[in-house]
């Protein structure tokens, strides 16, 4: 799997994500204008996923700082094809600044890594887990992301091991 920035993305953050996850980062792509929703000032994550798939023949994890949405939801942190090959997540709502707080780069990288894990789990075919400490518990709010301890619970880990072998997608 390869890490692909969508739109402008801070080089340092990308390098750190790549270093921690062991995923190679590829050249970035631009967000297509068609995915932009002017009134919401957000990008349609499903359309970005399509673009990523056109661009990359193999498994791909998009990272972006654009604010993402799907038509019925006000926002999403990320989106993944369950058991598919493309996923994307945004650091927009993971930044403390988004909530009017002073920046915290260390916290940002922690949160981003959890989201990266989480979306990878979906790519493998893992659904949301009920253990709030597990990285696969749902993350609809940044508080939920902070509650997780950054790793899979034992059940999810077992399933992930089997699936990652089957699918040939390495866990970060």
């Amino acid at each position, binding site marked *: 799997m390869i890490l692909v920035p969508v739109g402008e993305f801070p080089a340092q953050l990308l390098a750190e994500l790549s270093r921690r996850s062991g995923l190679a980062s590829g050249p970035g792509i631009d967000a297509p204008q068609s995915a932009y929703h002017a009134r*919401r000032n957000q990008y*349609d994550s*499903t359309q970005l996923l399509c673009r990523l798939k056109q661009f990359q023949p193999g498994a791909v994890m998009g990272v972006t700082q654009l604010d993402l*949405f*799907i*038509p*019925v*939801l*006000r*926002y*999403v942190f990320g*989106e*993944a*094809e*369950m058991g598919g090959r493309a996923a994307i997540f945004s650091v927009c709502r993971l930044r403390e600044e988004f909530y009017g707080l002073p920046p915290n780069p260390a916290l940002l990288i922690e949160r981003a890594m959890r989201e990266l894990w989480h979306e990878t789990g*979906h790519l493998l075919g893992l*659904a*949301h*887990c*009920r*253990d709030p*400490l*597990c990285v696969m518990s*749902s993350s*609809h*709010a940044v508080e939920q992301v902070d509650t997780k301890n950054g790793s899979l*619970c*034992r*059940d*999810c880990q077992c399933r992930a091991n089997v699936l990652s072998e089957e699918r040939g997608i390495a866990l970060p």
Partner: protein
Amino acid sequence: MSEPSGPLDRFSILVVDDEAVVRDSLQEWFSQEGYQVEAAASAPEALTALAKSEFDLVIADIRMPGMDGVELLEKIQAEKLEAAVILITGYASVESAVRALKLGAFDYLTKPFDPDDLSAVVRNALERQLLRRENRQLRDQLASGGVLSEIIGVSEAMRKVKEQIEMVAAVDSTVLVEGRSGTGKELVARAIHRLSPRRFHPLVVVHCGALTETLIESELFGHEKGAFTGAQHRRKGKFEAAMGGTVFLDEIADISLKTQTDLLRVLQEREVVRVGGTQAIPVDFRVIAATNRNLEQMVKEGLFRADLYYRLHVFRIYLPALRERPSDVPVLATHFLEKYSRKMGRHFHGFQRAALDKLSSHAWPGNVRELENCIERALVVSSEPVIRAEDLVLGEGRALAPLSGYSLECVEKNHILRVLEEFSWNQTQAAKALGIDRVTLYHKIKRYELKQSAKALSSPEAAVKGTRG
């Protein structure tokens, strides 16, 4: 460390929207949440899917070409489908959403909504569905004759018993079921459990009479490894095993004063300490106790703790002996006739007048169990489609097994069998008459493989076989 996944996981959701992007993203979103999801591109397509399989939740856009979301809701209501309906509206269609609520939609969401709101609304809807499902199961059970219809009886006494069962099932109090051997105490205990809010949890039965003091303590409270000789593994007791259900303590009069004290503590504290353990484990259970002895009398004689007695008989159900409710004899006889003809795959028309008279004039010391055995035996021996008086072998007329050997063992075995027969297999009474303790009797029954078998008693020939073992 993960929590066991809850019952919500097994729910199925149908997403209905004409816009592919909305449909796909919602489908993706719900499958990430772990639900079973299907999607339909229009209301008619949704109805087809609903006809094919059952869904717990339908989440549909209000504005769709052709049939809209509100019409879909009306169709679902008209078909009396169980699915809850959540509608999605744009700002323009909030009015129709409010109308939809009046028509019975569970809720509506205005686009775009927060992921958290979607989660919460869906969870609420599914929790309501779960409750409905449980209620439907119960209704089905009641409609199909139900729990109480298994308790046969037309007498005033049995009508009252059924009323008491219904009343006490709803509350969580301890129940004491009293009655002679074979009057249906266990049947009543099971009915109470199955009608109670604890019915989705286990009913665990402890036959207190069959165990020695050490064994009963470990059976009730569990034990730690090495707590006593033979305790090689730690084990959960019945109170722990009940896990929110009911513990049925059968033959409660047979427990020792020491165990009574321990039992009282568990009832008061709602905690158990395993034998050989130190830690108190919280337990959630309801107790139904049964006895064929007069506990009040035993309290007076100092054989049963008064405080435990008062705790147990918060609610008391008394089952009168069968001879005290003669009107139940023919209906019970007919009930068992049907039960066993079904089992044997034979057809019986009923009883001859003389047979019914014979049943009515019998004293039934073994109560309903004796009647049941008597009917089963009659069906085995009868070659006619009607049960005649001579097919019915009743207690007094029954030939005792002839001696089949002269060794002490053989004599003991025959003697025990006779005494057991005499007391309709009430082991406590038989043990008393034999002058041995109940546990010893229990082990002798096991060792000689004594059985209260219908066939063994149906003919003298079979009875001989039975005693030879």
